[in-house]
């Protein structure tokens, strides 16, 4: 099912808030699909979910779980 813009924005906000996506300094906010897929893969792997790079139901459910407000160091690229 195609993702609604709100769902996609919520997911990108989550990936940004918890360090899976890095807000680039020099270019505007929009991220390439590759960045988002890579960020989703990092999140899915750290959450022991099937690593698809897609924003599937299991991934969205996991993003709704209560958690700590600190970032996660699980995307090697952003960690650097």
């Amino acid at each position, binding site marked *: 099912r195609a993702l609604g813009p709100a769902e996609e924005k919520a997911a990108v906000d989550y990936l940004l808030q918890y360090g899976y996506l890095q807000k680039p300094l020099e270019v505007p906010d929009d991220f390439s699909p590759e960045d988002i897929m890579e960020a989703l893969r990092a999140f899915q792997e750290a959450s022991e979910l099937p690593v698809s790079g897609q924003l599937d139901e299991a991934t969205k459910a996991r993003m709704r779980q*209560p*958690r*700590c*407000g*600190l970032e996660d160091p699980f995307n090697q690229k952003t960690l650097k």
Partner: protein
Amino acid sequence: YLLLGRWRKKHLTFRILNLPSSISSYKARAALLQAFRYWSNVAPLTFREVQAGWADIRLSFHGRQSPTCSNTFDGPGKVLAHADIPELGSVHFDEDEFWTEGTYRGVNLRIIAAHELGHALGLGHSRYTQALMAPVYAGYRPYFKLHPDDVAGIQALYGKKTPETEDEEEEMEVPIVSPVPIEPGPMPNPCSSELDAMMLGPHGKTYAFKGDYVWTVTNTGLGPLFRISALWEGLPGNLDAAVYSPRTQWIHFFKGNKVWRYINFRMAPGFPKKLNRVEPNLDAALYWPLNQKVFLFKGSGYWQWDELAQTDFSRYPKPIKELFTGVPDQPSAAMSWRDGRVYFFKGKEYWRLNRQLRVEKGYPQNIARNWMHCRPQTPVTNPSFGATTSSTTDTTLESTPSAMAPTLNQEHSPTDSIVDTILSATD
């Protein structure tokens, strides 16, 4: 694990600035104090509470607005809490969460606090989803303990907890026992006080309770008197009854219409509870090893309780005299002792019962003389202990280690170190 920073010192102060409204302040404090203990049990760290002024680690609750934190929360669910890394020390919890203890409902304050303290001590998030430092809350776990990855991370920062550091801490350490501002009652005289309770506790130690104080009774003398709340944090004085069950390792204390449960010196989650299936204001309690049941006494009646089964109390209380032949009603204390016999205490006297629960010939005898070593200077034979001693009336500490010297569980926590002091002194 991920290391984000560390404190240059290992003896830290903390202050609890406010508490949530969804849980009693008593339970909330107990949860926060236990959260510190998880870390001080495995690393050479000590945490001392201060009631005012500056503290290294400051715990507080705020919601969507906060005058001091730019990182506001988002209402129930989603983000539960956050913390700064060393050496900043702020730890914030979302006050809009339903904070709980001892239940699967809501969000367990103790586990979340332990996670946030992990950050405040320098740990980042762990890749192990079952680790405490995993980013997502894995829910309430009744027998929670740190994951090996959590332990490896904190020890990478502060080293392992070794006997030397424990000794060093003994001098330095102020236990995480917040100063209880309640003035203790008068210190009792073991030689002239009617006992509130007697208990054969873990590691075969005999405890006598009177007023706000507890002391140990050994073959060679009495231990020093300590405030009950210094050993069993959160327990009041003037207890009605106390009983340790080797079957469950549980210690139950009774007072009024409440019951407290401890494992060693740590209160079990969810306690104290209301006594609602036996009468309040009990007189005494004992564990009978022959049928592994706990007996509760009040007036002329008793209840037999199976700790691990749903007990039908509809046919209780039963008359004490039907089962314990020759003992008085309204005992002040009772216990099964190491010699396989049952003892009842009342006033200045005690009764010894054989395995058939029948009072033995020559009883009652005098408690002060035969249990509390309070006798004249001249040497007398002590029928209870079979030894001749000529002790004095004041509590002399013997150096001979008791064969029952306790080996407290490896996880020493500050309260345990108090116990260490007591037990080593007593022995």
